[in-house]
């Protein structure tokens, strides 16, 4: 059979099974990747060349650093401190926790952010005798929005930055401002939606809760200092890597090595905590996309897309924001972005239009579009799983009723921003 047809069949079948969620996505992606080699679409050498080890190294490095740092209790401390700053007023706590989620998410992976924020959020809501659902929905929305702000905030950004050679500061100064605007807009809308529900709090409960000292959450002060130092070094590395030429993986893995050295911890435990299923999922996806590229399928897709938009930069950019958002609302945004990257590169080669606006359009559409449904991004799935376990099941449509309008408003803001700044 023609390698072209084989590659397309493997690719589509793999994606179909990933979407069906019948088999773990990592197993599916790995199987698809190996089939690309076994059936002769690409050889192993090309396949491995296609794996972006900068993305993989950056992910692993950050996972190790955060895995160690979270044991210090620093993230919980910040979240608990917010109840003091808000003086126990529910609506203030609600908004402040949202902002904290967005900020954490800009620096940490979205899933890590919600895994840190949801437990502490549940504790706060229980203490104040409040329904935790608004808090959980807010955590989903703002983790995805905050994640859009930086290179390291959301895996799609890491892949885009690595492929298009965009630095941490490129992301910070280009998508950072709009992420901030969308955070503010979303917080305002959440305020409008939930202000009645969060009005009444048990005053006595709030009073008792405020007696707690958030510093108790810090379980290990030496570890806290070492973690903060390492995070500062890593951030400095990212803020200057446009000038130093150091790539993301070097900085993140450097941070991991530094923190392991400082803590003298057994690396075995911390390397176990790396989400290897995610790492292997990425590796598999990269190989799948290489297969599709190799046989020219991506090129053909790019030609169709150009014919459809007439190669007009503005149309292409807007189509990319909304198209990416629509796709990301339905399927996981990582496979989508991995496929779109070579496609956009092909569009660039074919038409010569400047690609930078397209990268921002892709990142914003994919990161923020994921907010629309409960399955749109990994963080959404994680939060809804935790909520269900604690007896606060968030319904699919119940979520969409709040999330879709907010997501659409966010995307309109993105469209206007990109239109003014880049088109």
């Amino acid at each position, binding site marked *: 059979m023609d390698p072209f047809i084989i590659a397309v069949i493997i690719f589509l079948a793999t994606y179909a099974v990933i979407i069906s969620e019948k088999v773990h996505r990592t197993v599916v992606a790995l199987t698809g990747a190996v089939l690309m080699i076994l059936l002769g679409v690409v050889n192993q050498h090309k396949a491995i060349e296609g794996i972006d080890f900068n993305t993989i190294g950056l992910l692993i490095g950050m996972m190790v650093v955060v895995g160690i740092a979270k044991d210090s209790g620093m993230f*919980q401390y910040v979240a608990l401190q917010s109840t003091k700053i808000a003086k126990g007023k529910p609506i203030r706590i609600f908004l402040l926790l949202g902002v904290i989620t967005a900020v954490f998410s800009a620096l940490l992976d979205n899933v890590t952010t919600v895994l840190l924020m949801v437990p502490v959020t549940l*504790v706060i809501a*229980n*203490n104040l005798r409040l329904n935790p659902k608004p808090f959980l929905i807010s955590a989903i929305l703002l983790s995805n929005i905050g994640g859009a702000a930086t290179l390291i905030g959301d895996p799609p950004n890491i892949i885009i930055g690595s492929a298009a050679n965009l630095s941490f500061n490129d992301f910070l100064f280009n998508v950072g401002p709009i992420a901030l605007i969308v955070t503010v807009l979303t917080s305002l809308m959440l305020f409008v939606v939930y202000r009645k529900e969060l009005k009444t709090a048990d005053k006595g409960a709030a009073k008792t*809760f405020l007696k*707690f000292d958030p510093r108790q959450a810090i*379980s290990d002060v030496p570890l806290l200092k070492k973690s903060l130092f390492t995070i500062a070094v890593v951030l400095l590395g990212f803020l200057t890597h446009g000038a130093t030429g150091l790539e993301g993986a070097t900085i993140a893995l450097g941070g991991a090595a530094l923190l392991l050295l400082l803590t003298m911890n057994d690396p075995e435990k911390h390397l176990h905590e790396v989400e290897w299923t995610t790492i292997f999922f990425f590796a598999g996806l990269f190989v799948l996309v290489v297969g599709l590229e190799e046989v020219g399928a991506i090129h053909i897709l790019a030609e169709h897309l150009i014919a459809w938009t007439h190669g007009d930069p503005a149309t292409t950019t807007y189509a990319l924001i909304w198209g990416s958002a629509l796709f990301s609302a339905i399927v996981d945004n990582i496979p989508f972005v991995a496929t779109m990257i070579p496609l956009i590169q092909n569009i660039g080669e074919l038409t010569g239009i400047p690609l930078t606006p397209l990268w921002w359009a892709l990142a914003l559409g994919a990161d923020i579009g994921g907010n629309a449904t409960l399955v749109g991004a990994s963080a959404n799935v994680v939060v809804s799983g*935790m909520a269900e376990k604690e007896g606060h099941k968030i319904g699919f449509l119940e979520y969409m009723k709040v999330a879709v309008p907010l997501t659409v408003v966010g995307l309109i803001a993105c469209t206007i921003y990109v239109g003014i700044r880049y088109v």
Partner: protein
Amino acid sequence: MKTFKASNYMRTPVATIGKGATLKEAVRIMIEHKTNGLVVVDADNRVAGILSSWDMIQHLVPDYLEEDQHLAAFEAAAKFKERVTELADDPIERFMTKQVHSIHPESTLMEAAATLSEFRIRQLPVVDDDGYLVGYLNRTDIKKAVAEILGIDPQ
């Protein structure tokens, strides 16, 4: 002379509970029998699992507090009562230990001790060739055998 095998040191009858029981029933039986461990059996008296107070405690702690132990200090005091009330009718099948290590009545006490030690478990059902529960060994029973060898008066 008495040989050091399971059947000579196991206790009978065994405190058991049916597979379909709830958390509330399990706690009642544990209190009645003054024990922290029950053997879960099906209708044919075959071992289906082990239920210890430890399993119950783990079930009682919500997942979000297990991930962040130091958070538990901040949780509302009323949460404990709420959880217990919520979980009272939970079937024990949901939180019992399903992977049960058991031994044969003819097994030696060394084998029993080795099993307890290797898997860091506290209870060991004694099961005959057909899979029926015939007795039960725990750490106390091993300790009694040790005392016997050392000539320590059980009183």
